[in-house]
């Protein structure tokens, strides 16, 4: 087994969560890698959807942005943002990828500010399509670097809805029925949301990681599934595909998770 980075582990683990026969809403960065890897190895029929209108790109070449020409390279359709977002609102987009600077126990995300909104310590980019993906896709897969200051009890700003702080939070807010975060994928492990509470729950550990490590790196009280699985490390085919085919210039791979 080759040595691999935390980012590579994260991307491989994310790729393994993807279903083939669905449309997936892809944001910038690691989700692109995960989708491209999944499309090559696990889910060839995956339909990549980019928010500014690209439908069904081959992902043969990695786009650097969600509106670039590579997002509709050899694609079935080049539409616009309203059509794509309305397609999601109408229920046609199965999976969406999300990430953020902070996450809470309900999978709510912050990509807006660290510190107060009117005079932030760090101004982040803002929602972008994040809030829409988190509101409208059937299920979301959240990619995060696992650190205590990112897995927080209370978000500085709730940009994008997870389960909105309670089991019935989405319902109360009026978000589409039956939607919400499905998995959180981190460099430490894999998480789902407990059916009754909708709180994040450890279900599998990455190689070499212990439950106590995860708990220590989490700023809220983390639930642990009755049985915690072990995620296999990146396989040779995964690493080779990722490094040689998906991101040969290491544009995303060289970034930290």
């Amino acid at each position: 087994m080759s040595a691999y980075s935390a980012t590579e582990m994260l991307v491989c683990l994310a790729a393994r969560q993807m279903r083939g026969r669905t449309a997936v809403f892809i944001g910038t960065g690691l989700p692109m890698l995960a989708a491209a890897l999944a499309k090559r190895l696990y889910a060839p029929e995956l339909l990549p959807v980019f928010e500014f209108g690209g439908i069904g790109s081959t992902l043969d070449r990695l786009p650097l942005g969600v509106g670039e020409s590579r997002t509709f390279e050899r694609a079935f359709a080049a539409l616009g943002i309203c059509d794509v977002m309305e397609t999601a609102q109408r229920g046609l987009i199965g999976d969406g990828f999300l990430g953020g600077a902070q996450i809470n126990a309900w999978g709510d995300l912050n990509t807006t500010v660290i510190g107060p909104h009117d005079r932030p310590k760090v101004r982040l980019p803002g929602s972008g399509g994040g809030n829409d993906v988190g509101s409208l896709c059937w299920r979301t897969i959240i990619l995060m670097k696992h650190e205590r200051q990112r897995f927080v009890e209370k978000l500085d700003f709730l940009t994008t809805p997870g389960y909105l702080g309670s089991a019935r939070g989405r319902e109360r807010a009026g978000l589409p029925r039956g939607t919400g975060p499905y998995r959180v994928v981190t460099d430490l492990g894999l998480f789902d949301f407990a059916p009754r509470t909708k709180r994040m729950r450890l279900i599998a550990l990455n190689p070499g990681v212990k439950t106590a490590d995860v708990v220590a790196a989490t700023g809220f009280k983390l639930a642990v599934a009755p049985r915690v699985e072990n995620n296999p490390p990146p396989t040779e085919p995964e690493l080779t595909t990722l490094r040689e085919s998906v991101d040969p210039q290491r544009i995303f791979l060289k970034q930290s998770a």
Partner: protein
Amino acid sequence: MLLQPPDPEGLRAWMRDHKDMTLTRKVMSESEAVRRFVREGDYVGFELYGTVRCPLSVVREIVRQGPRRLRLLGQGLMDVDFLVAAGLVEAMDITYVGYEAYGLSSVLRRAAEKDGLRLIEWSNAALAWRMKAAAMGLPFLPARSMLGTDTFKHSGARRMKDPYTGIELALLPALALDCGVIHVHRADVFGNCQLDGITGFALEMARASKRLIISAEQIIETEEILKRPEKTAIPFYLVDAVVHAPFGAHPGETCYLYRRDEGHISGYLAAARSAEGMKRYLDEWVYGVPDHAAYMRRVGESDLAKLAEEKGS
């Protein structure tokens, strides 16, 4: 709280009084277009965004002319950075200002963290739908996004219960821009525009703009428009100015024509990290060139030719 409140009746009267439904030649220099159609205090927006089919040559001209107290549609990269760094922006409806794979906008960070730039938060769909509402002549559009979040609380959206089904909805107020600027592949002298690839939010912005500047890679004969009327994405009567701007999106890409200039973008991002670096960049690439023709000469003909050659790579 809204930076630009909905006013369908005002928009109707504006359209009646200002839009020219007859064929008029509208080709002009970027300098004339900006002088005539971008004014102090305007609410402005650009399409698509920063590195993708973005009318950056017009943005640079706006920076040079310097109309103040602009309110901005905050979907962008360099387009937003340039105007903010030049001190022209008073407030912004923001959805996403950042460099995607390349991280945060240093300019936005300084403006928000140090200078207290006023930012109203929206999702990407919400801003597009707000323009769509204006384009439809409506005061609002309902939506199922934004609900339950701080994004909603820091926006100017409201809620309502759908009378047919009881579903809770966000009501997004229509957003009509004082001036929109859109970069297209081809336009005729009257402003009939053709676009290739994804349409982003061009159709919505074109219809939601009180004044509309088109920046076009190529000026084509009207005969070409008449041959394929289904290819017209923006009809002439929506347009106030047509600026001929080959490589107008540089250092970004225009699909099928030229790829983005990675070297220039990296250099820009490095410069933008400090206020001084940003000032130097603007001095060199914006204030330091009189117009887009001079800008292209500064980039270099052979470099531009290379970007065109490598469009498919």
